[in-house]
């Protein structure tokens, strides 16, 4: 039977991808950030899972405003890195797991989540920057990936509670897949940032750190945070942290935080990162 072996949360700032792609990770500006992922790099290389369900959002790359799906699941065999306007990132093609994805699609829709299914999908920095942070610059990604794209660009995104419940449904669906697969769920985006208007540049270290505490120890309380609190406290783009709740919902109630890191700034953004292990 398939099982969820870990959860991981991380920011997915595009400038981080550029720093990796341009070989700037040891520059003074970037070095402290990448140092915070070194533990994770070793942990990840030691035992990559069979599949990562990678929760992210597209940023006007593959999706325009013709169709705006709340939850879009990638069921294809592979996913090309997007050309975000100046050529795709120099990273490997992302290999999917279409059989598990079809199982998730069917299970989750019958469990009354109103998914949009994607037989074709290009993936932007929201998905590839986390892979680069965790796995560096390999010839091929060491794990298969099922993309789960969440609308957090157009208001309203799904509620935190809905995301938490989707995570729980993913847990049930994975547990009912007969093949013996190790599956991780990654939640990406955030932490506090705002990249528009007179309030641009907002960072709320106190709120972010309370969020990092609570998502580990009291996720139900995090699931109850209304959108307006994210917008007010963590900035208009900080609301994308609802995606971390999908990851958290997919884990057992009790988790151990194997690793935690927080750093300000990467470009306009506060970077947060967690590695969580479910406890029996």
């Amino acid at each position: 039977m398939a099982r969820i072996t870990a959860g991981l949360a991380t920011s997915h700032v595009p400038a981080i991808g550029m720093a990796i792609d341009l070989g700037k990770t040891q520059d003074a500006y970037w070095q402290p950030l990448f140092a915070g992922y070194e533990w994770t790099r070793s942990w990840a290389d030691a035992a990559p899972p069979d599949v990562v369900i990678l929760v992210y959002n597209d940023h006007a790359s593959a999706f325009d405003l013709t169709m705006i799906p709340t939850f879009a699941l990638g069921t294809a065999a592979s996913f090309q890195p997007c050309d975000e306007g100046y050529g795709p990132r120099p990273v490997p093609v992302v290999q999917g797991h279409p059989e598990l994805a079809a199982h998730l699609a069917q299970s989750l829709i019958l469990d009354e989540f109103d998914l949009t299914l994607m037989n074709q999908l290009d993936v932007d920095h929201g998905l590839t920057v986390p892979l680069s942070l965790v796995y560096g610059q390999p010839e091929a990604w060491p794990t298969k990936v099922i993309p789960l794209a969440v609308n957090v660009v157009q208001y309203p995104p799904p509620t935190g509670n809905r995301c938490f419940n989707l995570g729980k449904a993913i847990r049930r669906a994975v547990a009912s897949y007969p093949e013996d697969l190790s599956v991780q769920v990654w939640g990406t985006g955030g932490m506090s940032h705002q990249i528009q208007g007179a309030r641009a540049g907002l960072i709320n270290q106190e709120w972010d750190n309370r969020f990092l505490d609570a998502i580990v120890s009291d996720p139900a309380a995090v699931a109850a945070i209304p959108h307006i609190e994210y917008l007010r406290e963590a900035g208009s783009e900080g609301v994308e942290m609802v995606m971390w709740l999908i990851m958290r919902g997919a884990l057992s109630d009790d988790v151990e935080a194997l690793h935690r890191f927080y750093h300000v700034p990467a470009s306009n953004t506060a970077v947060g990162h967690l590695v969580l292990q479910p406890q029996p």
Partner: protein
Amino acid sequence: MVDNSELDDLPGTTVFTAERSRQGFPLNQMCMSLMAAANRERFHADERAYLDEWPMSQEQKQAVLDRDFQRMLDLGGNVYFLSKIFASDGLSYVQAVSTMTGMTVEEYQAMMLAGGRSPDGWRSKSERA
């Protein structure tokens, strides 16, 4: 209507609602078109002519010509889409975003390096006033 008064009370922030998404649809789709190099070339060769190919309002077109990003937000633009404009001008997010804050790029960068803008005083319009 849905009560969006709390959203409207955020100072210096334009929440991209479904209503704004509809108003900004041609503006944002025009922005998406700038992902293609050939379109960027045509745009920079004659911006007015390029914009006239899209069913945008005159105000939307003027805001693009003026590179008035705050005005574009007010007219339904979303920053991830507007980024296609400033990227085609060779500007980074930090450079373009700082123009909406009334700070110079240097001041904005210094603020970010010092830990970013504190939320204190920015939680609501009344708190700000």
